[in-house]
């Protein structure tokens, strides 16, 4: 599946300056793995050492928090959008 991963501006330098990254995968986790493989400097801000979501970012698939779905196992479809935001906001 072809999807777009959008990252915060502060992480853009770790991905060559772009805030939107075209990526492939059948699940959110696979999409993140694809991005991590092509942008190693960004990898550690998306996944922890166990391959789980990095605890200080949140992933939203088409505006939905993936923790309320199947986490990195959440399936994606062609044209989906994944937004990454810092976890510490609001309240």
């Amino acid at each position, binding site marked *: 599946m072809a999807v777009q991963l*959008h990252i*915060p*501006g*502060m992480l853009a330098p770790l991905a060559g300056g772009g805030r939107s990254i075209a990526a492939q995968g059948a699940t959110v986790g696979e999409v993140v793995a694809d991005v991590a493989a092509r942008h190693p400097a960004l990898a550690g*801000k998306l996944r922890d050492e166990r391959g789980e979501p*990095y*605890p*200080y*970012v*949140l992933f*939203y698939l088409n*505006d939905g*928090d993936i*923790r*309320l779905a199947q986490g990195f196992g959440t399936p994606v479809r062609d044209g989906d959008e994944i*937004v990454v*935001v*810092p*976890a*510490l*906001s*609001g*309240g």
Partner: protein
Amino acid sequence: MTPPSAAAVSPAPLPGPGLVPQACRLCGERSAPAPQAVCSSCLGPLEPVYDPARRLPSRAEIARRPPSLWRYREWLPVTGEPVHSLDSGFTPLLEAPRLARLLGVARALVKNDAVSHPSLSFKDRVVATALNAAAALGLGTVGCASTGNLANAVAAQAARAGLAAWIFIPHDLELGKVVGTAVYGANLVRVQGTYDDVNRLCAQVADRFGWGLVNLNLRGYYGEGSKTMAFEIAEQLGWRLPSAVVVPMAGGSLLTKLHKGFGEVTAARLASGSPPRLYGAQAAGCAPIVELVERGGDLIRPVVPDTIARSIAIGNPADGRFAAQAIRASGGHAQAVSDPELVEGIRLLAREAGVFTETAGGATVAAALALARAGRFRPDDELVLCITGNGLKTVEALRGALSEAPVIPPKLSAVASLASA
């Protein structure tokens, strides 16, 4: 001799506010003052760093200062002269003896931020701090993601400061909170979804537009304003610390900052006594921090809120893990209450203490009752209930809960009939 230019004879401008630097709570990396709330290295939370050698005021010096949150300015991140919202804070601490009897404690007090100036909630404290941070950073537009009280506070204080404001709220908030924001002329945007949807959107807005969103990119500075509630409680008790405090929890920031504030009061040797046990209250329909306290561990399990307590309906609390840590470290606990229980809490506080609070305050009172029933309090406890918002903002919560007032003809006999009934 050349006459002095107009610029040369003008008085020097008063120094505007400045800001202390920030450091990451996780990795310790320092950041210069900026509209940035997370660490650029590890994405952990940034917190202001204070000069440990700075001169701190004595009790007597504090007592001579105006009755506002700025009397504790050495513990706030704004350096120089604050320019906005100079008169927020220093709300009453009320004795509530009938509540004390109901709760089985020696003394119960209500920290009444329901009458906070100017917008009737504790959010006036954090916004006063954040708007001065915005001034220090030269930001002309501020905003927030809000469940209502913060919207009111940002709108009111930005209007007075002459700042543009963009305020994002869930589309279906209580009427009082919508009107209490729109009236100030802010750009009010109602977003389809829950607060957590609003918050995610605002993280993107802050990133895209560079506005000073008080609880997003100014969050490190903003949160410190909550500490002033702890300082006030200590000072109003005659520079003594209470033994227990009950606090409503939404994002978990207030409880976390009260923990920090009580610690700073103690470290500065301003107050006697041990820091209090902290008890957090949530509505059962949105209680991820209570669940974390009971489960143990550090990772919040987010929920989709389902409660009338909209002001604390945050299913993904950013400071949830820190609030849980503070509760455990203080020896306190956390308690969830049902919507009917929190409505009864609103009524009880009004009847027994003469304070009309909103749903979050109802949850606080109801949680205190539940904690008392569970034996969490001690007979010699001096207990403070933090009442964070005004009941006039959420009158919908009481629909059907109060008996209808009789309508009578303007005749004395009609009153006599009522009085003898």
